[in-house]
């Protein structure tokens, strides 16, 4: 029984982890049809924000929960103004330009902080015990905060005026602009929001994974495959794809070890896309957010 609970806890953690690293990407992709290949670097920048802030004596919780989304959100807004806004509607070029951006960030951070791991921070919170098994309390915290984050994004998009205007702009930019909405400002804010969520995710994961200039590549494959499998709907897509792929990954990892877990995740995603080329939310849950 304890073993079962412990395994289920691990699988739920894998699912939450997938949702956490994918959400920022899903917001930018779902709202703006922009595939941001620098997503991994947004996560990386979030991690570096936390490390630099804690090294300068900032409380770790403030660094993770406030500073990392703020800093990366601002970087996102700057990136949107300087680069992305020239490329709307040119999906392939956006893809290439953000890839260039990704290399640029890796190079920049390597030049500033060096290629090796910056000072690591140990995960706050102790261990929790499930019968005779123990697990990290921080992992439980991550599961909780991922759920909270999903709810928060839902509330922002569904309940606030900004969310309403943003969704309207994404559906029909010309009409929104005719109704007096500054669409360019909305694009900027949406990209900033996506970047902020990515930054928060990077900050949250920094105590577990440590930070490296190239850490983005660890996340990026999984984040992309989750978002693509999920389809256009931001929350329903990310959640359903994370649950499906996370469960496959978790179960296979438990049975055969972590090597085949990722391969199984990828195979599941490719077969899924053969059956549902537009992702899960292209076939079911179509009207969802």
């Amino acid at each position: 029984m304890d073993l079962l609970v412990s395994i289920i806890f691990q699988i739920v953690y894998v699912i939450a982890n997938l949702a956490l690293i994918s959400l920022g990407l899903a917001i930018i992709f779902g709202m703006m049809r922009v595939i941001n290949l620098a997503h991994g670097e947004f996560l990386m920048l979030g991690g570096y924000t936390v490390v630099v802030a804690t090294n300068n004596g900032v409380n770790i919780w403030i660094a993770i929960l406030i500073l990392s989304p703020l800093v990366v959100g601002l970087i996102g807004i700057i990136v949107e103004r300087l680069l992305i806004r020239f490329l709307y509607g040119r999906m392939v070029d956006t893809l290439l330009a953000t890839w260039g951006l990704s290399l640029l960030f890796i190079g920049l951070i390597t030049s500033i902080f060096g290629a090796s791991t910056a000072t690591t921070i140990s995960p706050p919170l102790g261990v929790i015990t499930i019968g005779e098994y123990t697990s990290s309390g921080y992992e439980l915290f991550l599961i909780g905060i991922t759920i909270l984050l999903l709810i928060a994004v839902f509330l922002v998009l569904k309940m606030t005026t900004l969310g309403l205007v943003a969704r309207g702009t994404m559906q029909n930019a010309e009409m929104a602009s005719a109704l007096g909405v500054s669409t360019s400002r909305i694009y900027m804010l949406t990209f900033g929001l996506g970047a902020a969520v990515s930054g928060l995710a990077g900050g949250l994961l920094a105590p577990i994974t440590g930070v490296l200039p190239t850490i983005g590549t660890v996340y990026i494959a999984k984040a992309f495959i989750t978002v693509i499998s999920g389809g256009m709907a931001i929350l329903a897509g990310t959640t359903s794809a994370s649950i499906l792929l996370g469960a496959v990954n978790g179960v296979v990892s438990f049975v055969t070890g972590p090597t085949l877990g990722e391969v199984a995740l990828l195979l599941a995603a490719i077969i899924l896309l053969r059956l549902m080329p537009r992702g899960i939310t292209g076939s079911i849950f179509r009207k969802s957010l």
Partner: protein
Amino acid sequence: MRELREMKATWIIAVFGILFTLAGPSVLELFTIITLAQVIGLSILALSLALVWGFGGILCFGQTAFFGLGAYAYVIAAINFGGSSWAILVAMLVAAAFAAILGYFVFYGRVSDVYLAVITLTVTLILYSLIRRTSGPEYKIGNALLGGFNGISAPPLNYPWDASAFLFPEQVFYVAMLALIIAYVFCSWLVRTHFGRVCVAIRENEDRAELLAYDTRLYKLGIFTVGAAIAGLGGIFFCIGVSRVTPDVFSLPQSALTIIWVIVGGRGTLIGPILATFALYYLTSALGSQSVLNTNLVLGTILIIFVLGVPKGVVPAISDLMQSRRGRKALRARERRLQRRRPSSTHNATTTEGAE
């Protein structure tokens, strides 16, 4: 055979290639010759992406997956067979077969181009993390230990069917250059065949090609598979050049570099990406030897500048420029002729110009 006659420019470039091959070993130092095998391997990779992306319109971000698989398959096969002749064939077949399976899922699933880019990239990254974890002694194929992070050392090329007679670096250079020239002429021929023309038509407008009753999925799968086989060939020479194959062939920077070569060289040409590979390889190794500017920083900047400023790439931009200059010159010459004939009605002459 009509295609072969149409390829005048290709033959000229091929002759230049052969001259370079023959002159290379007597002009260049041995060390340069050895590294050149590696660069030639990379340029074959760029050529394959130029074919798949530039002519097939398939945005494949993971061309290095086939490149790396080719390299790994060559090394593993060469170790197991005890010779390199069949291993070359096996490497190309493995790369092509992997592409055919992956391509079946994505093209027959009608995955659109941007999704395709992300999926191919993801496949590459997963291969990267998979191969990196194979360091234990239990991971081996036949006699070849996969070696995880450290990779496997590559057996040298040998004379066909005589595994004990290894090729010297100069000879490896000849073989690699020959492979590059043959691959280039082959690609150049392929895009002029009926098959190649249909692929270009699909790139231009997939719906229209489909309405003309071409099975676009099959054509895309075809060019994707051929491209993968060529990438696999590139992988063979790359791993012989560095005398080792490591998981880094699947890494993100390597995939990015491949894309950058094709962007800089130009989509829709075959020679552009090959030249860009040589130029950027020497640029990045020069950057690697100094410590002021980070290589990634420079490459990222190059990519952004090209996407925003020169989206067609260098070779098409130059040929456009030359064509427009030639066009302007012809126009001016014509205007002068017309002026001489009818000195009073210059204005009239230029207006009829547009109507013709």
